[in-house]
């Protein structure tokens, strides 16, 4: 024996030594070791400090259920992972791991004082102690508590790794590759079913890896499955959640175990849709609840056996066993057979099977029946235990250097419960087992309650002659919840297990109560004096074990987080120095600064250019819907507030779209291309919504209408040419369309060709100037744009962006749906009564315009606002009050929706939604903003060229 390594035992590769560090100190293990097994082999017992009391902790379990030994692993900048289980970290050459939640060091942790102040930290202490004064919570209490109580540190740098994902379908998914899982997969090996076998560990086998008697069977089974072409095997892969219709999420860890991780993906998210699922997740041994059960060196009996037979590590020279279940005796006997001296077996039961007693006697192991461990000596390592008969008499010390505990078994029902399968209480197991399936899923092996591990009794907490209010007997090791905390919660009136859980935080740590739920439930049921089944069980929720954000995000980050839609003209804008802004999913040119201009200078210049000569604007993002069919006009007539049937081909109309509740949802100009064809435009952000709404009415309310709807947003490049010189520029281009005002009046559309390509030429204006919108097939957009820019040079043609577009439209009182409206604004509120077809019997939302609330006085109206100080530009969103001297909270009349500097007017302008606004014309209102309260006068919304003389030229 070297250290605690046992010669000849275990599956680790003795030929390959691996050097790694823990808290800066170098250790050696073997390939196949976990961080936990390699450190135990080196005699390390102290792995971390507990969450609340900063008590020294070792490893309690050998698998992912371990609640104590949380560590951080660093692999260089950005590659820092906290809160990993030492029992699930495979060692590799150069691994750098460190302990957590201690200062200045693991051995000397100043905050261990919390352990002695335990009386101040009962269940719910943060709800009681830190309530007053309230203002202290955010600045003092919470940061202090977070510093004292906690897990590992969060990474501080961006994760440079990448993560991949895949969808996969199979006929049979087996979760867990222990004996039951392997058998389920073997039954279909070589069949025509697509089988996926998943296991979270580095090799298949589960418990069979800890049982040399099964080694040969295991090797044969793995060979058969590996050779089977229809079986896909995923190791180091955790099925973390079971979702509807046999949809299982799993994360495969690809590189964390490699000394040279390479440049491939770190983890892979598998989204698996399975015909049938077999859950073979096994069972988890339960700790026993007694004082000192968290001392480093106290661990589950099955874990001790795993360390010996899988990893070749003895947990001590002469461990003792505390059992309430036969399985612990078998583990002790197996340890003894492996050369480990068992110093004593203590069992809370008065009688056990004679065969166990005979075997113990044969091995020379002292047995204490009807007794319990009532204390553990040693702080960083077990040095002995004190036991007493259950009556409290006969207290004595047993010398030992580790303690195994065997409290029975809890079937792992996590995924079963995610799938909403029901569970039933099994009295003989003292645990819940699967009952009725809700999906095509079944449990196999230990997780179904099928266990051949002997019998045992369920003991909520071991009997002790000590004062129960003065001892710490842990139930939830990771959250530092003790038996007395649960008793306290019940005494304070918490009767539901869900409330007990939240008050004590039992089962709420990162291990989700894998080792604590049933013990906590037993304690609560005992305290309540009710049967366990009446107390219920808390809900299991994904993930089964913690997963990285990286794996869940996959490729959906940075530039791939959301698609960026670009118009055909976007490249030109970029080449010409545009500053962009996102508008729904589009990136749009915001403004085009020249020679170091700031935004305001650029926008003022762009505005002047449009008002004085000509500007060019990329309007391609406008939503476009082609409405076609003999009933197209009838359809639009029913959808929009405006009348459409009399609109002549070649003419355009502004359309206002309401929801059925009467509120504005979209607007846009539509042109009648031919009697049966309309070119309808929508807002940039509303395109998909409007098309979906139209489809809804067409398919489900008016299926008799013969109409086809097609999204054409991306089929057209739209170039807006605006300004008094717009016609001059257009005339300089090669086009067959008569541009004269007589032949082509405002609000009309012409089909023809321009620059040799087909065009739908609209004469429309969102600026108040003479304007055209040149629609050409999208692929010709950039070429036509460049020709227009070239033709516009004599007039100083100026590209402008969305900011200038906003200013120009606001000067003219044109609203933007979604900015000046918010889903509670009617046409009357917005001053758009003129857009309602008065003679129309019906349209979507018409009936609602007569609803009592909508005709009632005092509604918010959209109005103009002119500040007393013309140079002051109000903040959009600022609130409006009638009397700034009124006490707080003030009565707010509304808010500013749009606000700009108007270069054309030489002053600021704004729109606002104001209660009773249309009756408040010329009234002075007040707008409190940071630093000052500003005055503004209510006005109409058309600030520039109210007669519209500039459009009709």
């Amino acid at each position, binding site marked *: 024996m070297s250290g605690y390594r046992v010669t000849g035992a275990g599956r680790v590769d003795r030929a390959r030594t691996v050097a790694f560090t823990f808290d800066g100190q170098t250790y050696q293990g073997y390939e196949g070791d976990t961080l936990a097994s390699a450190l135990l082999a080196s005699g390390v017992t102290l792995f971390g400090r507990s969450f609340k009391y900063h008590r020294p902790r070792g490893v309690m379990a050998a698998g992912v259920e371990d609640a104590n030994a949380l560590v951080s692993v660093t692999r260089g900048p950005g590659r820092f992972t906290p809160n990993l289980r030492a029992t699930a970290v495979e060692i590799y050459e150069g691994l750098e791991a460190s302990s957590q939640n201690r200062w200045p060091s693991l051995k000397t942790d100043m905050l261990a004082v919390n352990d002695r102040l335990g009386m101040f930290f009962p269940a719910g202490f943060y709800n009681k102690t830190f309530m007053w004064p309230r203002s202290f919570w955010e600045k003092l209490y919470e940061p202090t508590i977070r510093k004292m109580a906690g897990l590992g540190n969060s990474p501080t740098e961006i994760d440079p790794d990448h993560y991949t994902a895949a969808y996969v379908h199979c006929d049979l998914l087996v979760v867990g590759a222990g004996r039951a899982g392997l058998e389920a997969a073997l039954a279909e090996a070589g069949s025509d079913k697509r089988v996926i076998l998943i296991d979270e560990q580095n090799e298949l086998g589960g418990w069979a890896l800890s049982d040399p008697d099964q080694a040969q069977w295991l090797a044969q089974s793995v060979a058969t499955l590996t050779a089977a072409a229809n079986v896909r095997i995923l190791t180091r892969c955790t099925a973390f959640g079971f*979702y*509807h*219709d046999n*949809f299982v999420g799993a994360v495969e860890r690809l590189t964390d175990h490699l000394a040279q991780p390479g440049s491939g993906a770190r983890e892979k998210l598998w989204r698996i*849709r399975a015909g049938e699922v077999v859950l073979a997740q096994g069972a988890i041994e339960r700790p026993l609840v007694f004082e000192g059960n968290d001392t480093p060196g106290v661990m589950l009996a099955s874990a001790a056996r795993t360390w010996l037979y899988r990893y070749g590590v003895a947990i001590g020279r002469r461990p003792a066993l505390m059992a309430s279940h036969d399985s612990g005796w078998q583990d002790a006997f197996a340890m003894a057979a492996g050369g480990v001296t068992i110093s004593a077996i203590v069992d809370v039961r008065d009688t056990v099977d004679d065969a166990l007693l005979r075997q113990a006697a044969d091995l020379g192991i002292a047995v204490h029946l009807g007794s319990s461990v009532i204390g553990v000596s040693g702080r960083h390592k077990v040095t002995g235990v004190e036991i007493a008969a259950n009556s409290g008499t006969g207290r004595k010390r047993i010398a030992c250097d580790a303690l195994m505990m065997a409290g029975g078994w809890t079937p792992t029902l996590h995924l079963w419960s995610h799938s*909403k399968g029901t569970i039933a209480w099994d009295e003989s197991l003292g645990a819940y087992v699967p009952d009725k399936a*809700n999906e095509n899923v079944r449990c196999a092996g230990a997780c179904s309650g099928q266990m051949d591990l002997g019998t045992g009794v369920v003991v909520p907490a071991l009997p002790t002659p000590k004062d129960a209010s003065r001892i710490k007997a842990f139930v939830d090791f990771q959250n530092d919840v003790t038996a007395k905390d649960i008793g306290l919660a019940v005494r304070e009136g918490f009767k539901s297990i869900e409330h007990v859980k939240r008050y004590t935080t039992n089962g709420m740590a990162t291990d989700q109560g894998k080792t604590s739920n049933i013990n906590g439930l037993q304690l609560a049921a005992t305290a309540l004096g009710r049967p366990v089944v009446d107390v219920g069980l808390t809900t299991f929720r994904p993930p089964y074990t913690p997963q990285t954000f990286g794996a869940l995000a996959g490729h959906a980050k940075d530039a791939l987080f959301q698609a960026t839609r670009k118009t055909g003209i976007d490249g030109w804008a970029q080449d010409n120095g545009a500053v962009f802004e996102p508008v729904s999913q589009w990136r749009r040119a915001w403004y085009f600064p020249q020679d170091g201009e700031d935004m305001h200078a650029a926008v003022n210049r762009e505005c002047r250019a449009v008002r004085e000569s000509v500007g060019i604007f990329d309007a391609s993002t406008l939503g476009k819907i082609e409405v076609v069919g003999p009933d197209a006009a009838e359809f639009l007539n029913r959808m929009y507030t405006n009348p459409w049937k009399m609109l002549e081909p070649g003419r355009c109309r502004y359309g206002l779209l309401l929801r*059925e*509740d009467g509120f504005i949802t979209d607007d846009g100009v539509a042109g009648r291309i031919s009697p049966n064809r309309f070119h309808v435009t929508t807002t940039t952000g509303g395109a998909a919504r409007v098309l*979906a709404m139209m*489809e*809804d*009415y067409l*398919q*489900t*309310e008016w*299926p008799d209408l013969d109409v086809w709807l097609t999204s054409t947003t991306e089929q057209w490049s739209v170039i807006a040419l605006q300004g008094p010189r717009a016609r001059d520029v257009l005339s300089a281009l090669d086009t067959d369309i008569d541009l004269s005002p007589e032949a082509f009046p405002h609000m009309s559309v012409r089909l023809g060709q321009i620059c040799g390509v087909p065009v739908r030429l609209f004469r429309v204006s969102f600026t108040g100037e003479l304007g055209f919108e040149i629609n050409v097939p999208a692929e010709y957009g950039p070429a036509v744009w460049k020709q227009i820019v070239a033709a516009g040079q004599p007039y100083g043609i100026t590209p402008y962006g969305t900011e200038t577009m906003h200013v120009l439209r606001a000067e003219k009182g044109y609203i933007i749906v979604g900015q000046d409206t918010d889903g509670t604004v009617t046409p009357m509120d917005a001053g758009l009564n003129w857009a309602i077809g008065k003679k129309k*019997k*019906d349209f979507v939302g*018409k*009936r*609602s315009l*007569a*609803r*009592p609330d909508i005709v009632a006085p005092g509604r918010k109206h959209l109005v103009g606002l002119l500040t007393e100080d013309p140079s002051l530009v109000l903040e959009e969103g600022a609130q409006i009050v009638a009397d700034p001297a009124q006490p707080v909270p003030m009565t707010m009349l509304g808010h500013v929706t749009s606000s700009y500097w108007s270069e054309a007017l030489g002053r600021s302008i704004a729109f606002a939604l104001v209660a009773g606004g249309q009756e408040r014309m010329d009234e002075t209102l007040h707008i409190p903003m940071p630093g000052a309260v500003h005055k503004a006068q209510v006005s109409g919304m058309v600030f520039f060229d109210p007669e519209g003389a500039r459009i009709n030229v």
Partner: protein
Amino acid sequence: MLLIHCPYCDEKRPEIEFAYGGEAHIARPLDPSALSDEEWETYLFIRSNARGRHHERWRHIHGCGRFFNAVRDTVTDKFETTYKAGEERR
């Protein structure tokens, strides 16, 4: 993620291909202006909010684009059936 049977495509497809469309079999009145405020309120806002069997509309928006009706149990979140728009309530 649910699998939903589209009665037009006659295939079970993942939920992300579909859009929910609210309660089914609520026909828009033929002459809304003839309705009282209470009747219009009922049409606009009042829904059954069933616990259990719920008739609802879905649209195979990233597939065939068609609206159809479904019966789904709001407790178990399981689909009982789906059927084409215009067919009798099931």
